[in-house]
């Protein structure tokens, strides 16, 4: 009996061994091609910052040690700086009006949660913003927004709603003292928040469940002193100038369109009527220009079907301009300088500039340029 058991055990282990050593196929990986994303411009258009992920091309086999870095370009002097750390990924940069300071996210921090950092762009001196509330595993911080002067900061963080559930909420304050000033649930957010250039108003997507048990994304607005008020619902992706709020809303056909709300006049109007989604609006600080991403092919001539393109809309004249004509890949994450004269965006297109480039670049467009130009900074 013992012998039989030993033989069975031996055979069993041999089969286990065979399962381990048998020849294997190599994994083929889906590709995620975006390398450079989330560009941001200072109001004067002099400074450009964006994320760069050196390993963002393959889903499988990604080197976990690779960390996203922030590229900072002074367009006046062509001085290029890279904010990187071998252990921390730097993400979501936001510049002040003069570009002297930059807020961004660093993940993971010493306690493994994301932090918000402020950097002086000339010296790249970094300092960490104290999060409003932090306990092991809870209280991570994302998506910073900084006012034109750099004195007001807002970002997404978490605070306890019950012993084990932390709601995602809006943090607002100065870089020296951040708080979560809005009532619970009212300030529960999906994470899309906007801060006006003067730092006096914050708008966020509220993500609390409503009476019908539907997550109805409601745009809440507050000047930080009075109680938050509802702007619209369901509505998404707010962007602010001092007087205006642009955002995304679904039309009667279920297509996402760009809307604009004037706080002084209390009026809201629809800006786009495209045949496909328009998303990611970004208002210039002077409130005269708006850039956005759109899959629509009927906003202007020249938009290639099947790809998202970048448009510039002059709000005073309602003139729409396609910045990525004939682009052979998606363009996205647009941002605009304070006067609307400079636009930056990321793109998977290879044919937007004079020469063909690899997909996954950040591009710049300026009034007076015939075509947009890729920001070629990566030969180093």
């Amino acid at each position, binding site marked *: 009996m013992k012998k039989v058991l030993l033989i069975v055990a031996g055979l069993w282990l041999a089969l286990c061994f065979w399962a381990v050593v048998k020849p294997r196929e190599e994994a083929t990986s889906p590709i995620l091609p975006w390398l450079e994303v989330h560009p941001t411009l200072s109001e004067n258009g002099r400074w450009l910052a964006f994320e760069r992920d050196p390993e963002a091309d393959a889903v499988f086999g990604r080197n976990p040690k690779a960390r996203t870095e922030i590229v900072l370009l002074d367009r006046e002097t062509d001085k290029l700086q890279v904010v990187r750390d071998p252990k921390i990924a730097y993400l979501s940069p936001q510049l002040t009006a003069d570009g002297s300071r930059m807020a961004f996210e660093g993940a993971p921090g010493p306690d493994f949660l994301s932090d918000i950092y402020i950097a002086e762009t000339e010296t790249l001196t970094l300092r960490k913003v104290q999060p409003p509330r932090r306990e092991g595993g809870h209280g991570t911080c994302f998506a910073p927004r900084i006012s034109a002067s750099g004195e007001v900061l807002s970002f997404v963080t978490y605070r306890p709603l019950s012993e084990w559930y932390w709601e995602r909420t809006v943090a607002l304050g100065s870089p020296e003292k951040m708080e979560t000033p809005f009532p619970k649930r009212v300030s529960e957010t999906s994470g899309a928040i906007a801060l006006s250039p003067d730092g006096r108003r914050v708008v966020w997507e509220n993500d609390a469940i409503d009476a019908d048990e539907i997550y109805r994304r409601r745009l809440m607005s507050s000047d930080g002193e009075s109680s938050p008020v509802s702007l619209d619902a369901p509505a998404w*992706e707010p962007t602010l100038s001092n007087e205006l709020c642009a955002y995304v809303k679904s039309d009667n056909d279920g297509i996402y369109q760009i809307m604009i709300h004037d706080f002084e006049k209390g009026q809201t109007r629809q800006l786009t009527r495209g045949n496909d989604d328009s998303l990611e609006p970004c208002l210039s600080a002077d409130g005269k220009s708006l850039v956005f991403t759109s899959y629509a092919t009927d906003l202007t001539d020249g938009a290639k079907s099947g790809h998202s393109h970048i448009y510039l809309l002059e709000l005073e004249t309602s003139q729409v301009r396609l910045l990525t004509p004939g682009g052979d890949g998606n363009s996205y994450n647009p941002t605009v300088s304070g006067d609307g004269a400079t636009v930056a965006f990321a793109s998977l297109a290879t044919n937007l500039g004079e020469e063909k480039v690899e997909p996954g670049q950040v591009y710049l467009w300026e009034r007076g340029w015939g075509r947009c130009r890729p920001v070629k900074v990566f030969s180093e």
Partner: protein
Amino acid sequence: MEKKTAQRLLAALTALYIVCFSILSLERHQRLVTSIFDVGIFDQALYLTTHGESLFLSTRGLHVHGDHFHPILLLFAPLYFIWPSVSLLLIAQTVVIAIGAYPAYRLGRHHGFREGQAVLIGALYLAHPTVGFLNRFDFHPVSALAPALMFAVLYLEEKKPVGFTLAVVAALCCTEAAGFTILALAVTALWVRDKWWALGTFGLGAAGIVGTKLWLRHFNHDESTPYAMLYTNYGTSEVEVVTHLLTHPLQSVAQMATPLNLEYLFYLFAPLLFLPLLAPDRLLPTVPVLLGNLLSWRHAQHRIENHYGAALTAFLIWAAVVGWKRLRERGASDRWMGGLVLMAAVVSFLLGPLGSKHLSRLPERASIPTALEQIGQDKVVVAGNEIGGHLTHRDKLFLFPNPFIVAAWGNSPESLVQQGTAEYRPLTRGALRRGMEAVSVDFVVLSEHEFRSEFPLRGGDHDLARKEIRRSSLFEKLEDVEGDALVWKRKGEP
């Protein structure tokens, strides 16, 4: 009671346990209560291992051996060659856990209990909530830890070094955390046996800790796994955490004394009539894992309903047996104690997953369409957590919303935070749509509202991601699929 009768009774109880828990596990799978985390992960791991596929786990975003140390899983491979199925895993897990009743029975006999009383001790093991919930929690190789440690304890008491070594090695092959338990067992071995047993046990535990660390680094791009971050309230490494506990003992105890932790401790000790507290020397090996559970910020570790008690059961039973023996030595009546222990076994069984409280929470049986079986193994599938366990036999199965948006994927600290607290960078519609366009996914399979699991997203984000699938022009919904699954196929896919 005669030995033969007692052993038959124990076999009958064990068989009853296996039948009941096999049915429960299979029913949970059919009712979409099991999920990609964890049955899908291990089913895919075995599928890849036995089918000569690359050992990259698309469900988790890492190497099969890059997250936990569980070579014991390979012992299932020969069975998997014959019947590659989640059902096999669930039944095999039940059998492996149930085997622990036998060493529990023998432990009772070793300590001088009569046959009937020893059977009762075996029943206590089977009825203990840590065992039942370990069995109920999907599938996890750590389940084998409970019987392996039960055998280790038995052989330590019976002074059988070969059996003890084999049992300890088996335990070490269940999880990387077992090394710490074995180190603590070395201290008890010094108490129970002698310094040579203690030294040997210590050596095995230390080798286990070092070996598993090297193993995990090898399969994780030369990086440590991020689990030390579960204790960031106390430090960012094992050394820092232990230092904090030693230098701030009162503060640490105060931090641990939460209602949830007290409830957890009640569920551990009450089913054994608090007898283990009479044998603290036998409870010592529970300290590393018990502290790990009580100190972690991960909610699931403070709940009896999960698999985090696997390393505790054997020592709780051992301490209960010795505690009962010590009561006997002080003159406690066998009849009264036997009656109380029997009552405790029945009550704790009812407190466990087969109690009405938990059974009543099971949803209705889901109707899982046969169309799912027709999705080819070469297809790239994205599935909801609840239904993904039915689609794991392929090398590219992703947990929704991966790979469109990366969430709880890979072995980064961010991934662990997302798994434990759902704290992650917000989703955007544009990024989701671009993700859908960039990665060629053939099928997206979710389930009807009443079965859906929002993990790893928050409710609103899950809602948003589902909505974007529904409105995407890249996918078409297969309207002819009947049942509780919702299937979208990439347009143009045959």
